[in-house]
């Protein structure tokens, strides 16, 4: 079949993204005739990878003046060639969604509601909780064996983190002596 979208778009190996200005990876041909009224005209295009499944499709996020304009498949991406599934195609509504958490929330014991808190308060309080739990349940030795593990603290999650985040999470949890360290790969 010679009618694939890459052929049609005539856009292969387009340049650096993240700063490119253009129409969804169409950095070249159509540029000159671009009307200002066009939805993604004169937007900043950033490439990203879909946060859903493990295929790793490329997407292009178009923004104008820091505001989200459009998200669609990256036509230069060798795996998806601009295509997406219903979830990837909906990424726009992840980035722009009034249901997203916007503030730190705290729920006191026995309470039936959230309270809004500051980051500093929350991080300080959490650090105290971790320390209290760790110090109370830390097991330096199991008989004669040195084990240095924290048994009252569990860490879950990570499949939605970036590699760099997963790495720091792993490093942080191990430094705390956490053995209850699990994420979605186990289930």
């Amino acid at each position: 079949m010679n009618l694939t979208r890459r052929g049609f778009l005539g856009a292969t190996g387009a340049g650096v993204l993240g700063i490119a200005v253009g129409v969804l990876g169409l950095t070249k041909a159509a540029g000159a005739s671009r009307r200002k009224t066009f939805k993604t005209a004169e937007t900043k295009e950033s490439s990203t990878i879909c946060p859903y499944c493990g295929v790793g499709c490329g997407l292009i996020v178009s923004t104008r003046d820091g505001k989200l304009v459009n998200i669609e498949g990256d036509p230069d991406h060798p795996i998806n060639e601009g295509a997406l599934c219903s979830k990837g195609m909906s990424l726009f509504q992840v980035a722009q969604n009034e249901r997203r958490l916007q503030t730190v929330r705290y729920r006191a014991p026995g309470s039936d509601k959230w309270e809004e808190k500051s980051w500093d308060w929350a991080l300080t309080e959490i650090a105290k909780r971790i320390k209290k739990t760790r110090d109370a349940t830390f097991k330096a030795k199991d008989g004669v064996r040195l084990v240095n593990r924290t048994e009252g603290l569990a860490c879950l999650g990570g499949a939605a983190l970036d590699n760099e985040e997963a790495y720091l999470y792993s490093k942080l949890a191990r430094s705390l002596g956490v053995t209850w360290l699990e994420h979605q790969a186990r289930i």
Partner: protein
Amino acid sequence: MNAMLIDSTRCVGCRACQIACKSWNELPSEKTQFFAGKGYQNPKDLSATTWTLITYNETKRRGRFDWVFGKRQCMHCLLPACATACPVTALKKTPEGPVVYDSSICLGCRYCQLACPFDVPRFEWDKVFTKITKCTMCADRVAEGMEPACCKACPTDAIVFGERSKLLAEAHARIDANPLNYVHHVFGEKEMGGTCVLHLSDVPHQELGHAGGLSEEPASAYSRPAMASIPFVLTGLGIGLGAVSWVVNRRQQLAAQQKEIERLHEIAEQAEGKEPGGTNS
């Protein structure tokens, strides 16, 4: 002229196209419950906020169970019924292929909805400043040299965009290459005079939710006899009615003249002292 070839044998029913359409055209979601159609279909039908829709159809093909997916959207007819119907040319066929709509001249008469054999145009029932809506073949993108959003999103190349003649040739080539795998009918090649959206399928197209029993004539052929007769009727009526009224009036005039003559005669006769005739009353 641009067109889309939609091959249902390649469609996997993932509905990326449905979302791509909503995303590019900034269409809101609809409130749904369970599934509104067969299988996983949602929403129930095309609507003001759903311009393309995947249908899920359980069927049998060559004796075996099969589950096939269809895509409904505007067919972008070569001679569209909606454009034929629209009293004010708010709906127009563009030379590039898309049938486009201009709300600034639309009356909201919804005749396009009635006329469309594919049940495509939708109306915003819940708005005061309401519009007709439908798939635009992403005319804005097409004008920029891009493919329609649904077409780009499709992961399995079930939707291909390009020159209609080439796509038609491609469609027939696919059938010829795989005669057992297709019904030998390119839906849209001839329907309603031909459309810019062409469908291929391995089950009869109607099972996918496409309209059946369509003529190969464009919609305008249905109304043409009546519309074409207008000048003849006008001229005929003008001549006929004028003639009739002239004749009738002439006759009445003559009758009245006759009466007048008779009356004058009577007066004259009376003046001559004669009795009037007994036959008049």
